[in-house]
């Protein structure tokens, strides 16, 4: 039975790895997806940095332990900012595609386009 910590840590790791892989792709759409995935992984990471709690109150009510509230506030801020920047980068990628006639991150099809495309 794997512990909660191991599950979360490997989950964050896998999502980050997938995000980094997509970030390194040549087209803007996978890059945006990669940024989003990395953002998700980071948000969970921040959350976990307040330690994992089971059977703890989320708020200061009653007796017993209470989960660390601060990372929750930090995550909320990070989510809001991440949402805004993702919106911006999607719009930017679309506009770049329109201006340059290519969705390649360098704004032009690479020389041997057929091989790099896949």
């Amino acid at each position, binding site marked *: 039975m794997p512990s909660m910590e191991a599950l979360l840590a490997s989950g964050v790791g896998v999502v980050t790895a997938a995000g980094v892989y997509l*970030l390194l792709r040549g087209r*803007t759409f996978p*890059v945006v997806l990669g*940024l989003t995935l*990395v*953002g998700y992984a*980071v948000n969970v*990471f*921040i959350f976990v*940095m*307040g*330690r994992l*709690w089971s059977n*703890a109150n989320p708020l200061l009510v009653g007796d017993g*332990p*209470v*989960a*660390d509230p*601060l*990372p929750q506030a*930090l995550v909320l*801020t*990070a989510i809001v*900012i991440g949402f*805004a*920047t993702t919106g*911006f*980068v999607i719009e*930017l*990628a679309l*506009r*770049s595609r329109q*201006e*340059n006639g290519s969705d390649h*991150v*360098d*704004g032009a099809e690479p020389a041997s386009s057929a091989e790099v495309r896949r």
Partner: protein
Amino acid sequence: MNGLLDVWWQHAPVLSVVLPSLTAVVLLLLGDPGGLSAQGGAHDGGRVAWQRRVALASVGLGLLAAAAMVWRASQGELMVYRLGEWPAPFGIVLVLDRLSALMVLLTYLVAVPVLWYATGGWDMRGRYFHAVFQFQLMGLCGAFLTGDLFNLFVFFEVLLIASYVLLLHGQGRERFRMGVHYVVLNLSASALFLIGVSMLYAVTGTLNMADLAGRVAALSGDSVPLAKAAAAILLVVFGLKAALVPLFFWLPGTYAAASAPVAALFAIMTKVGVYSIIRTHWVIFGADAGEAALAVADWLLPAALVTSVLGVLGALAAQHMSRLVAYLTVSSVGTIMASVGLFTPDTLSAALYYTLHSTIVIAGLFLLVELMAAQRGDAGDHLQPASAVREPVLLGLMMLFGAASAAGLPPLPGFLGKLMLLQSSHGLAAQAWIWAVVLTVGFFTIIGLARAGVVVFWHVQPVADGPAAGSSLKLLSAAWVFMALTVVLAVVAEPVKRYTDDAARQLTDRAAYQKAVLGDRLQTTRPYTGER
């Protein structure tokens, strides 16, 4: 009036963030004449004039406030502003010390002439230039003033989002191409920033810089490597902003693609990275921070020296004047970081003086490059033989002045800054490296700029139709302001040096910083364990 001044006196740090943000809102409400004229509608002259008046009045006021804050900080007072009166480790604080005040003043010293230059026409070549410019200033002031690491992240995002839009100002293929790179790189860096910050939170249970300074020093056992890893991650994040090796490759293309006033304003953006490195690695991971002390000292100095050399090599190889200046930015950041990375108060003081100088000179050079390019017909800022500029004497002298200042020839402040740097590194283990790199880089800077000058002013081809009209006085005057500032910086070098000396000493005195922010009780948080 006195009442108003009292209010300002009490709330100075937060007001310097609020002023640009409110101005930006007013400018948004005033509408967007740039968009109107771009759509071919009637040019709304009245609204344009109002936009410019409001924006200029606001930066003028900001400059006065920043100068007053420097005067106030120079008295030695460490002003702590608790937002919402929450006590320090729990609420967010803004801290006004000598370094913060100096950086805010530098921001406005760059912003005022740049905005003046932009009102010469650039501000109408896209939408909402003035509002975004103010948001940029808000982010910069906030980043320089905040005393909380997570709040620093938030202000970083504010200034970055504004910079994304400013970079695209004027649009065009190249800007969108570089814009994608710039935005994706900075978003990745923001993710790393969050990782570094939350790792620090995990081992210390706080994000207040003063509290962190105390708690990092008290760490032991397993937490130390984690804290050191967080320090290294933060160095990567700020190194990307500051354009340190190996993270500077984005800068030359991006700055060269930006419109001239934006590139000139971005001269301060790399200094945000420099400032953040100073703040985190001196205050939080300073020399007396226990086992995690000077966590990145081994990396910072070599990286900085290599940056300086690679930057100047790029300047030698550049085919465009704007790229040349952008590479000089990289090189100057390397010089600054080398002297920050020596971790002594004397070298830090020299670094701060050199920061003032290099930011002003580079902003001026970016404006000058566009003035020259505008008079060279199709060649633009491409370094190739082309038609002569219309005003060779005037622009030539300006170029000579800018080049001499950037390369550090006496009696300009670049020379003084480098002299301070060489002197302060005397007797340190890395002295030979510093001297060799700084002097060589200075020499190659002269060669690079001389090459540009020769091509632009002497390597001319006669053309039939003759060059375009001369520069307008408004645009020229903005560049003159930067040159005048460098002269002023040389004339008042002595008081400025005294100020930076004090600033460096204030940064080293971590106990006083903690006491000012947290109070006598040192009521600090601990890593949260769930116990009541």
